[in-house]
């Protein structure tokens, strides 16, 4: 049972996180405490040493997207959160049977392009207004 409204969008987030005990549980709790259900999740080694990349999708409204993004950014072991713009997603429904990991973004040269310091910055990622 989740608190979904008809017409809520599916949102896709990508995260760069430190590989630490409990990080997946911390991420999951940001959603479950709001009655939101994570519909898809992948977790794989990132190119940056000691880091993992997470890609997940959930259904919710714009305000919920803003809240979960903000709370994910507060987690100490989360380095960066990106909201994948809708136009970048394939047109099919995101929880189709196709392999999810095949659509993983590649953090090419991630250490240089996405320095951890920018991840906590205000302007790193545009946030939808509430």
């Amino acid at each position, binding site marked *: 049972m989740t608190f979904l409204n008809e017409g809520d969008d599916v949102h896709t987030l990508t995260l760069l996180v430190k590989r630490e005990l*409990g990080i997946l549980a*911390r991420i999951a*709790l940001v959603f479950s405490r709001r009655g939101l259900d994570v519909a898809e999740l992948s977790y794989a080694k990132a190119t940056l040493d000691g880091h993992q990349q997470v890609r997940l999708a959930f259904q919710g409204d714009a305000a919920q997207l803003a*809240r979960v993004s*903000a709370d994910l950014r507060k987690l*100490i072991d989360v380095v960066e959160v990106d909201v994948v713009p809708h136009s970048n997603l394939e047109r099919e429904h995101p929880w189709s049977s196709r392999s999810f990991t095949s659509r993983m973004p590649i953090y090419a040269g991630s250490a240089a392009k996405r320095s951890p310091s920018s991840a906590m910055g*205000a302007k790193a990622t545009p946030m939808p207004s509430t």
Partner: protein
Amino acid sequence: MTRPTGAEILIRELEQLGVTHVFGYPGGAAINVFDALYDSTIELVLARHEQGATHMADGYARASGRLGVVLVTSGPGALNTVTGLLTAKMDSVPLLVICGQTNRANLGKDAFQEADVFGVTLPLVKHSRLILSVDDIAPSVRRAHAIATSGRPGPVLLDLPKDVSGQRALHAPPLPMEPKADAALDQAQREDVRAMARLLSQSRRPLLLVGHGAIIAGAGAAVTALAERLQSPVTNTLLGKGAFPEQHPLSLGMLGMHGTAYANYATTRCDLVLSIGSRFDDRINGKTDAFCPLAKKLHIDIDRAEIGKIVTPDAAVCADAKLALLELLPLVDPLDTSAWLDELQTYREAHPLKAQKAGDGLAAARVIEAFYEAAPRDAIVATDVGQHQMWAAQFFLTARERTWLSSGGAGTMGFGLPAAIGAQLARPDATVIACVGDGGFQMVLGELATAAQRKLPIKLLVIDNRCLGMVRQWQELFYDNRLSGVVLDGNPDFVALARAFGIKGFYVDAEADLDATVRDALAYDGGPCLIHASVAREDNVFPMIPAGCSAAEIVLERPTTPLPPPPGST
């Protein structure tokens, strides 16, 4: 030289960080750490329950601004800190909770006193770590301290298996202390402050709203300077008491559900509200679309996630409140607010705060007022949660930062007495008053022994209305007076109870004896004392904005007709 154990490294790191007190309760899985404490300069404060230890560390931290440290054992010991973790998380209190854990090889096998404490506490901490190697102890403690005390403070938990605390390190030189970086605003933050200054310059009816963040940042003097420069009235949240002296002519006192009529009136009329370290929570903002309806909203908060969470601001600065205000001050000129201040003064005179009597007997608000009149201006007040808390917030005006300790976000009954113990240890020379209700006090009364053992000169004021007054008030006002589960018949004789702990007791139930009793209690210097104030059962806290309603729907006095159940939850 013997190589140090993990427990010894832990204690050495705490000493290096300047920790003076550890609040705790021992047990098998933490016994190595208690053993290491035996040789330490750190003072161990033995509580009578782990929840008490956690609130003591919390009170210590709130009163001093320093890290509060808790040490408990595994399983039930650790789980008894859970309420204290929530309390500290909600109110941004820097806490370090160290829990013993079963040996690594036993993890996940339901060993004796094993609990997945790391898992249970995940949503309640700013951060946590299960330490799996002795080499990880020193860096984990350093990092825990930095995380708990920096940015928006909060609780950090370290789970330490017994075999790790007992293991000897191969090589563990003390970590060098890192110098603290000078904090300064960056270019973007300074631009945000300038945008804020422009909006302020256009305001004719400004309102400053100060919260706990202003106190955490030590921004009190800057708040006063800004208010006086702008000639702006100031209101404070429950936890913002002390950020701006409530005796100041520009102070409107507390706003919100049980705030003053004039502070809430000001929110309905202001053309600009500047929140300094408050999070617009539902105690001050029952109905977001009707909050400060005529105002530009300005928000200073160190936690980016708070900006736009409840109220969408017209200008915001994500920064330390003190740094932001110091940047803002030279950019603003005095505003012509005389008409606005006159309007508020007229309203204040029409609807002053006064103790409202309904039942027979002594009014609790009068007892609190008598303590306020007799106590030193810098006395520390720690409260529990309920009617007495709101009366204390209304009638015990707060002049200074870190002298008002109350569980705001979590609303944790049982907080007051242990928090007062922690505060007295942090500030041995201060007058510390614990103002508690008969309900919350009985949740933690074992901590009387902790206070008695150390002869801490706490003044424990028990406001006894023989019921759970705030719930009774709701049942009376909104549920046709169907009193369910609120009557505390069977309360002990509190003075006799105090005596059983070797504590001096005073009793008062009449206005005529009030001033003398308060004077005697404040003058008593033989350790802790308990003042049992038997008060009217039926008195209610007013003003009251029913939960989920706007400030315009404020109820100023006991209604003559029943009210509908409020739309808000609590």
